[in-house]
């Protein structure tokens, strides 16, 4: 047995075991012990992931569980866990974000027993299992595990109506997505007689793409795209993220939704037959997701919802990058984004704990208390918003710069525009809330839009000061995002991980044991002068845009009207589509699945 044989199963079952421990012993242990155990588990997971990355730099590692390694040429009966640097890196990300969330909630949820910790650990196990599984059905099982925990975590605040509605919508839409994926898995199984991802791919690779292969793969990908919240499956994300407890949002936005993109890339690289149309469709879906997310991000006034739409926009960018040339860049972008977005969510959570609201208009100038802790929070928020725009040396900026270098020219405006617009929206909200910039907007009751008022507090009472852990967690996450951008090792591993993730042939060779195919070592992701310049420029553009919006409140309504008349109806129409009605979302899900399926199948099958 080598390290991977031990570490890969432990990375999944370790958190489960700790969760069981915490749940059984939770009622007798004092709260700090539970906090410490859970935190240690999350940190241990991150370390485990780092070791996995280290062990697989030279080549993918495969471990067949239960000693069911198939002899050469035989049909496999067991389950393989397959580790490559991308999978290991995502395990690290899960561990780091779970640690951040647990650290932040040290003083949070004072009334809850160990259940919250247990759920976070189970959630981590679900994500790790999904990442490491080399088997379609195992992926689905852990997808469902992720889901089951996530629905409960989204609706954790049971006193709050919105939270419950968001959780239910999330549950129904994601479950239906999983069932579509299972249909796809069933079709692929009937077609190939295999469940192992690599063996499915090997069976399909030789033949001309046929109906079952194409439709089966598309259905599986639709399931993962629902988790990734790609348009038009994105509706649940804003609803669930806006209402989930802040520490949970960190995990949702930072890693759970991006895992959907990972699943899409993994399955389409390893198992999809050679279908040129698939790549094109995924790029279009990604670009539309990015643009729609950015547009809707701008019009939000609920800060958490605003951040949620910004996540949707960035997931669109990841999808574009991962499928069209940006293989070496997108994982670095993902890691950098996760740190920055997590920090932003935690800072907004701090606002909720301090002022009992997450509404941008309601909180206008609320952050100007003069309290040193609030000043630190304000500074962190602004830095995080700038980092989201691409400010060097943060990891998000590095990933974005590398993405701009590698995607085709036609897509560069999408990348730049999306990051500028979302960062400007985030910055605008921060400047309003923390510094009171711009005139106080008129407060009007707006039935068409989710406000951030009346949100249930997550602490027992209104906090007089932001606590040390509540500032330390975002500061550490922001620092981690900076480390992603500065440490050359991460740029090197990130590039390698991305390229290897896209190389389905090497994965199949590793699992089938037909000899490793040595891929070329890709050029590391690092800062180049043009990247630095565009990073600074996009940051500046975001600042200018945010200030313009803030100042435009002073512009007489007469001058603003033409603009509003031009784009207003479109935006309003888009907003109306986000009705919060679960039936609408399910209808969109089926419609989207059909459109994507036909767009892929029609050109392929003729």
């Amino acid at each position, binding site marked *: 047995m080598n390290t991977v044989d031990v570490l890969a199963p432990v990375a999944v079952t370790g958190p489960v075991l700790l969760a069981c421990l915490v749940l059984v012993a939770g009622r007798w242990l004092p709260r700090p012990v539970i906090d410490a155990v859970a935190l240690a588990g999350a940190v241990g997971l991150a370390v485990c992931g780092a070791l996995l990355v280290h062990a697989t730099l030279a080549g993918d590692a495969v471990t067949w569980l239960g000693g069911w390694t198939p002899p050469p040429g035989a049909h496999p009966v067991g389950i393989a866990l397959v580790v490559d640097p991308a999978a290991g890196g995502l395990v690290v990300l899960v561990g780091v974000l779970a640690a951040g969330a647990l650290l932040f909630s040290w003083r949070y949820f004072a009334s809850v027993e160990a259940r919250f910790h247990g759920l976070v650990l189970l959630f981590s196990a679900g994500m790790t299992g999904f990442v490491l599984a080399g088997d379609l059905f195992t992926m689905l099982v852990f997808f469902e595990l992720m889901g089951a925990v996530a629905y409960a975590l989204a609706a954790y605040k049971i006193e709050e109506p919105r939270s419950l509605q968001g959780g239910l919508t999330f*549950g129904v839409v994601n479950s239906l997505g999983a*069932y579509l994926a299972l249909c796809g898995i*069933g079709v692929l199984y009937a077609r190939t007689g295999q*469940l192992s991802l690599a063996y499915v791919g090997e069976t399909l690779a030789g033949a001309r793409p046929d109906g079952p292969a194409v439709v089966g793969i598309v259905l599986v990908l639709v399931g993962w795209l629902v988790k990734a919240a790609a348009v038009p499956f994105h509706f649940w994300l804003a609803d669930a993220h806006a209402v989930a407890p802040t520490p949970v949002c960190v995990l949702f936005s930072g890693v759970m939704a991006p895992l959907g993109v990972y699943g899409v890339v993994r399955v389409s690289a390893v198992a999809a037959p050679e279908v040129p149309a698939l790549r094109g469709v995924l790029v279009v879906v990604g670009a539309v997701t990015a643009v729609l997310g950015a547009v809707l991000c701008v019009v939000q006034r609920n800060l958490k919802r605003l951040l949620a739409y910004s996540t949707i926009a960035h997931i669109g960018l990841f999808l574009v990058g991962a499928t069209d040339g940006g293989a070496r860049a997108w994982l670095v972008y993902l890691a950098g984004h996760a740190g920055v977005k997590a920090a932003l969510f935690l800072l907004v959570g701090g606002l909720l704990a301090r002022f009992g609201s997450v509404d941008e208009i309601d909180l206008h100038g609320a952050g100007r208390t003069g309290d040193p802790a609030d000043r630190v929070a304000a500074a962190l928020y602004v830095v995080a918003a700038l980092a989201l725009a691409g400010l060097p040396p943060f990891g998000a900026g590095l990933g974005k710069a590398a993405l701009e270098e590698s995607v085709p020219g036609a897509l560069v405006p999408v990348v730049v525009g999306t990051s500028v617009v979302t960062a400007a929206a985030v910055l605008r909200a921060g400047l309003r809330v923390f510094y009171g910039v711009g005139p106080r907007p008129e407060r009007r009751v707006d039935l068409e839009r989710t406000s951030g008022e009346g949100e249930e507090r997550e602490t027992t009472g209104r906090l007089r000061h932001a606590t040390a852990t509540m500032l330390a967690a975002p500061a550490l996450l922001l620092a981690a995002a900076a480390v992603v951008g500065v440490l050359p090792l991460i740029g090197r591993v990130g590039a390698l991980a991305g390229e290897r993730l896209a190389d389905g042939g090497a994965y199949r060779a590793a699992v089938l044991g037909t000899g490793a195919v040595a891929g070329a070592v890709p050029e590391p992701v690092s800062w180049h002068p043009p990247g630095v310049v565009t990073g600074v420029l996009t940051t500046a553009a975001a600042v200018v845009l945010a200030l313009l919006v803030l100042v435009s409140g002073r512009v007489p309504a007469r001058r603003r009207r033409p603009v509003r008349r031009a784009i207003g109806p479109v935006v309003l129409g888009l907003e109306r589509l986000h009705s*919060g009605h679960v039936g609408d979302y*399910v209808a969109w899900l089926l419609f989207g699945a059909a459109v994507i399926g036909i767009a892929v199948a029609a050109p392929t099958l003729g």
Partner: protein
Amino acid sequence: MTLTVVAWTVAGWLVLVGALGIVRSRDLVHTVVALSVAQSGTYVLLIAAGFQRGATVPILGAGGAGSSPVVDPLVQAMVLTDIVVSATVTALLLALTIQIAKRHGTVDPDELRALRG
């Protein structure tokens, strides 16, 4: 031939009709049950994928010690997992529905207006 058409059609039909139930639903409890109907379509699909005419149950030593072929046990194991998942997800969503009834005073999705835009 008939069996093939019927099995695939029923599997797909159940998934779609379950989804239709959700779309038309005026009561969240009904939504959750319709979701479980959609899921049961996947049971039929998997069982059909592993069926073999004239084969017996996948238990060794039963019905003449390996003399006759058995149906595919793998799909059965998958459906077992699937059924557990279905039951647990149903329970979870019903628990959410109870809380929605308490907090919103309604379980009609048309009247839930807390999230929009």
